[in-house]
């Protein structure tokens, strides 16, 4: 277990000496994951709500697929995005490969189904209670959807956090489409993977501890937001 003690020492010294390299990596991790989660929420929350609200043929299949896509393997997503963004691929001319943008794209694909699937469940539970009242008031589907998203905001925040958790912890996709290039596309997880492959487990673990601390900070920020959002809910 000396490794684990070493790891905490490494984490501590990393943070204590906070060199600009670590700062850069932490910042990029946050930028990519927050960016991806923002886009994924903008798409996934309404998508999940729409699947919860509307009855249409094939809806059951969509729910099954949404739930299954929570298990989309990052490496596979990374590959697909790579093939599309590669010079040999259809969007190669954009030159996005090995840029943070490519990483955001890959993570959006990974995280959107998670947020959508969890949002569907939250909204569906709420819809049982709200459906007739909203229809009676004459809410159009769009307005009903917005009202449900707003009234379910506290629970939906947990869904968004689940998506963020996937994004910030994920290494397979960002490694392939980002390339883990120092100073350009190196994020916490790819840095950790690099240290592991170098065999420097203590440094890898130290970085891991910093990453977990980062997640806790984001989650705490969300808790404050939750407190604000919860206004107007009973209790």
């Amino acid at each position, binding site marked *: 277990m000396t490794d684990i003690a070493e790891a905490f020492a490494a984490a501590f010294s990393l943070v204590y000496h906070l060199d600009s390299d670590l700062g850069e990596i932490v910042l990029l991790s946050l930028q990519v994951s927050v960016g991806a989660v923002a886009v994924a929420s903008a798409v996934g929350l309404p998508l999940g709500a729409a699947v919860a609200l509307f009855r249409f043929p094939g809806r059951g299949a969509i729910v099954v697929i949404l739930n299954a896509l929570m298990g989309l393997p990052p490496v596979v997503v990374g590959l697909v995005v790579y093939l599309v963004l590669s010079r040999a691929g259809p969007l190669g001319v954009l030159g996005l490969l*090995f840029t943070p943008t490519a990483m955001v794209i890959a993570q959006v694909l990974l995280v959107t189904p998670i947020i959508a699937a969890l949002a569907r469940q939250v909204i569906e539970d709420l819809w049982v209670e709200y459906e007739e009242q909203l229809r009676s008031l004459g809410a159009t589907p769009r307005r009903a959807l917005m009202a449900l998203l707003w009234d379910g905001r506290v629970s939906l925040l947990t869904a968004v956090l689940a998506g963020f958790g996937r994004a910030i912890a994920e290494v397979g996709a960002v490694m392939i489409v980002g*390339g883990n290039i120092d100073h350009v596309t190196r994020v916490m997880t790819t840095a950790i993977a690099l240290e592991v*492959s170098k065999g420097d487990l203590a440094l890898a673990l130290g970085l891991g501890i910093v990453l977990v601390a980062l997640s806790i900070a984001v989650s705490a920020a969300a808790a404050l937001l939750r407190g604000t959002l919860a206004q107007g809910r009973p209790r």
Partner: protein
Amino acid sequence: DFITVASTTSTQNAGLFDHLLPLFEAETGIEVRVVAVGTGQALRLARNGDADLLLVHDRPSEEAFVAEGYGSARFDLMYNDFVVVGPASDPAGIAGMGDAAAALAGIAAVEAPFVSRGDDSGTHRRERARWAAAGVDPTGASGTWYREAGQGMGATLNTATMMEAYTLADRGTWLSMRGRLDLRILVEGDAQLRNQYGVTLVSPERHPHVKAALARRFAEWLISPGGQAAIDGFTIDGERLFIPNAN
């Protein structure tokens, strides 16, 4: 301005680029972005035009890459060697042997655990060639004493330590990790274990967007006396990792 280099993990993990790139950048102002992946994946990146330069250690496939028109030129850059490492107990009794194939045959004879990279990398190909020379096909024993790890060199060395197994490793990774490993070098110096690295320029004819001129400057710098001296000066714990041999 920058170029993208597709490289193997062994060079990056050893820390070679951290040593070389600042020198080159200071001299030319050109930023070099290294994407370190498996040899197969590196070739694939270059083939798709996603890298401007290739730095790997599998000469046959590098030459094929040029022959197929994907690369415009290949240069020898440097070499080191592979070593057979294993537990101190050395159940197959191969310590000190000078012929890797014979050592492998000895391992197979007593069915001592052997961890293979199993990832079709340059190292793995070399290992397979030595098995072939030994007249043994270990894949039939896959999952028993012969274990295909399907991972990078560092992870494979760790696995070998845990399993008290033998493995074939490149010297660079071995040197950078040996302090944390419970293994030792048992076989080295076989001429068949030489590990030649090369740089290959990606052809702008296939991929017009490739930054051929900048990539050529980096390649030329690497094989220039200055670059070769820089490679020569890269050491870990006083030991030199790569021997420059551009001609």
